[in-house]
């Protein structure tokens, strides 16, 4: 069963005169794990921001699950089934670890404002369901022991994990991970790889991954897109990417011919 979940047609954005991203074509099938790599400043995070509605693309089309989502408000994109993590951790620092996950679970809860203000039965039912589901997510990530800790007091690696747990709690079909292994040591990176593989299976997810750690990318991605200077320069399996001269050039520079 490999229907197309996400389709991106000649996507582009300009900031003033700067063409940050142009003519990007991508597709993702249901259940795939895809990597997006490229040197610094290639436009990877900008592409993420367009996919999640933070930026409105100036050209091109994004189709997700059969619907056009280009330029939609971020919260609508998230409710539609795309959620993300951030490259520079953006947790709700003064909220507890549990509450961080509960915030993301918000869109799936039903009890309304009036029921909460007057403490009607539907409020208690809804809140205890949120609590239960959020705790389940924390357990998967081994964060349940920290549930009452403020997010800002967690060790760095745990904060990275909490970001992913929070993104999952929003109930996505497509998960966008922006450098999840940044700053982690090899052991932590290894654990993270296993975790990503596990949640992908468990929640039937499609995952798009930005990462600089080539070991991680080559190890778990099925297909890889390579961006350089805002343009796609290569696409293919890890083995193809590894031997692609354009990719080597983008990362290491041109070969000197005498």
């Amino acid at each position: 069963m490999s229907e197309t979940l996400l389709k991106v047609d000649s996507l582009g954005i300009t900031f003033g005169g700067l063409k940050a991203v142009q003519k990007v074509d991508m597709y993702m099938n249901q259940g795939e794990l895809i990597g997006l790599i490229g040197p610094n400043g290639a436009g990877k995070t900008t592409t993420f921001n367009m996919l999640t509605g933070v930026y409105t693309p100036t050209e091109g089309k994004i189709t997700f699950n059969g619907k056009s989502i280009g330029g939609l408000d971020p919260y609508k994109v998230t409710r539609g089934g795309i959620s993300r993590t951030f490259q520079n951790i953006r947790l709700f620092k003064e909220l507890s670890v549990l509450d961080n996950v509960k915030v993301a679970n918000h869109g799936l809860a039903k009890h309304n404002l009036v029921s909460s203000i007057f403490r009607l039965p539907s409020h208690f039912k809804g809140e205890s369901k949120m609590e239960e589901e959020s705790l389940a997510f924390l357990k998967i990530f081994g964060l349940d022991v920290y549930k009452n800790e403020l997010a800002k007091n967690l060790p760095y690696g745990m904060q990275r994990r909490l970001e992913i747990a929070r993104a999952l709690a929003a109930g996505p079909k497509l998960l966008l991970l922006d450098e999840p292994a940044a700053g982690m040591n090899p052991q932590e990176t290894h654990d993270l790889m296993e975790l990503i593989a596990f949640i992908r299976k468990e929640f039937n997810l499609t995952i798009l991954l930005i990462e600089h750690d080539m070991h991680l990318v080559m190890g778990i991605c099925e297909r890889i897109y390579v961006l350089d200077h805002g343009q796609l320069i290569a696409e293919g399996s890890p083995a193809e990417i590894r031997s692609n001269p354009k990719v080597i050039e983008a990362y290491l520079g041109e070969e000197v011919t005498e």
Partner: protein
Amino acid sequence: MKKSKIFWGYMALALVIYAVVQVLINNGIVTFYYQNMLITMCINIMLAVSLHIILGITGQFSIGHAGFMAVGAYVSAICTMQLELPFVTGILLGAIVAALAGLLVGIPTLRLKGDYLAIATLGFAEIIRIIFLNIEYVGGAAGMQITHQTNWTYAFFGVVVTILIISNFTNSRHGRACISIREDEIAADAMGINTTYYKVVAFAIGSFFAGVAGAIYAHNFYIIQPTTFGFLKSFDILIFVVLGGLGSLSGSVLAAILLTIVTTYLQGFPETRMIIYSLVLILVMLYRPSGLLGTKEVTDLFKFGKRGGSKA
């Protein structure tokens, strides 16, 4: 089950406080002077808590809170004095119109952030003041005479309802959504929170209770004048919230109580009043920059070790 027990405990405590003060008033032990101070305290608590939901919880820097108070005060005064409706109806209508004013102001201005929002709300409060200043129907600059109808019962239960509803709101998925906006608006948006909706909701609830406070205030002092609701009043309310600790409901209550007491006793020294008041503020900010309670609540202080033993 345990939570509802705590809730009824607080309600019982509130009733005891109410009954004791009422008995003292009836016996004449609490004189009219102190009764007035208690009512002012209640009004200030309502104002502080209603700004707390906008500034402390949702993180929207509004300094036009006296504007909403003015709407509540004038609308309720029109209801009771001109239309001869009962006081309770006046309070409710005043609060509803204030909430509508909050919606009206909130929807366009809440797109602004930080300083820009502050200036916009400040401008709004001034517009409200000027409007009332120029309407002859409500007495213009001379003010509007109002019969004294506020008593300890109205003021106290006004506070109870305000705190109850705002803390119910805060401790729900809706309140968490507002806190997440305060913490990181971009992340909140990315987690599926409709940030504009929640900012406007918080603004409307805050304005509603500022309206209640305004209505109770109007019926306490025999006369209301547009000058009372100037930007200095807005700053007074802002000070309660900041001094109590942004994000702490009990902190803003505590600050409102303390500062009301300080102001009342300083009325005996009109020459040095503002100097001492300012000194108190400067000292608190020097030694407790995050406010009296920071983001904690009074109840947290009794739960030792429950937060995993870490220091915030």
